């Protein structure tokens, strides 16, 4: 063990840390696909999968919006409204960024 500790403390330690992070991240990227390929798609699993993308999106943005205060919440609402009106991502992005920049410039 002390041989490994010495090696990790040496010049290759950082490269080893990056390798471990790379493997951990790749396992996250690949394991969902691998896991689901072994799951039989019953109607129940299909319903769960259908709910998953929107659930990931909502679970990601709600807490971040709350953390970001009024400008973030208004910006996300502006983006959703713009997207529902024109169905064009760039317009939604510009609407959201514009509202956030304006409100932040206004000191909110």
């Amino acid at each position, binding site marked *: 063990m002390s041989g490994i500790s010495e090696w990790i403390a040496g010049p290759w330690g950082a490269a080893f840390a990056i390798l471990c992070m790379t493997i951990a991240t790749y*396992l996250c990227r690949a394991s969902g696909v691998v896991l689901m390929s072994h799951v039989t*798609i019953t109607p129940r699993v299909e319903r769960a*999968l259908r709910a998953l993308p929107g659930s990931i*999106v909502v679970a990601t943005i*709600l807490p971040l919006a709350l953390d970001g205060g009024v400008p973030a919440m208004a910006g996300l609402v502006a983006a959703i409204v713009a997207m529902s009106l024109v169905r064009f991502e*760039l317009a939604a992005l510009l609407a959201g960024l514009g509202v956030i920049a304006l409100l932040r410039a206004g000191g909110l």
Partner: protein
Amino acid sequence: MHAPLDRPPFTLAGCWQGARYTLPLWPSIIVFANAFGAAAVQKGLTLEQAMGLSAFVFAGASQMVALEVWQATWTPATVLAVTTVTAVINARMILMGAAIQPWLAREPLGRNALNLFLLTDANWLIGTRYNAEGGRDVGVLFGAGATLWVIWVAATLPGYLLGSLVPEPKRFGLDLVLPIFFAAMLIPLWKGWRPARPWAVAGLVALAVHALVPGYAFIVAGALAGALAGAILG
């Protein structure tokens, strides 16, 4: 051996389409990668280490947090710590992969392995939207991921060498581009109030976990709760 008839297409045109879908995100990706490069210098990383993180880990939030626990001299314990932090932050990718698995199920193993290396929030979202509207060309997912990878790695370099190019990205809201992009994507995913009930569960659980647990656990907890609610509520 022949490709199954129901294998989805993987075309060059699809790759270009995916690359084009990433365009609105370029400014924020460049600024973010830039900020990572600049922060890496301050934490004492070599150029090779900073570029290695961007090229191989290729996950912005976890790269930033890794800098917080970066060491001049490593021990097995600190390597384990930085690996654990990385895995926890990127655990959301497990669910993203699960969500697109039906689309990728018939893909050849090697191509899937490479495609999944490039999986990030942005190209997952682009692919999900495209797939939800009936698109099947897996090249779209790959093209978007490859484009984001090139930009992310390339934009890390000037940040490391020259420092941050945009000193106050928050002024322009650039810190919130990905949440905005996520929010806009709710519209193409919207299929009415009934299918959106699990989303409400996901949101409530995410808010609760966010209030109680530090870090990014709220994404995985909320998303799992939403999937579970979907299975039960239908």
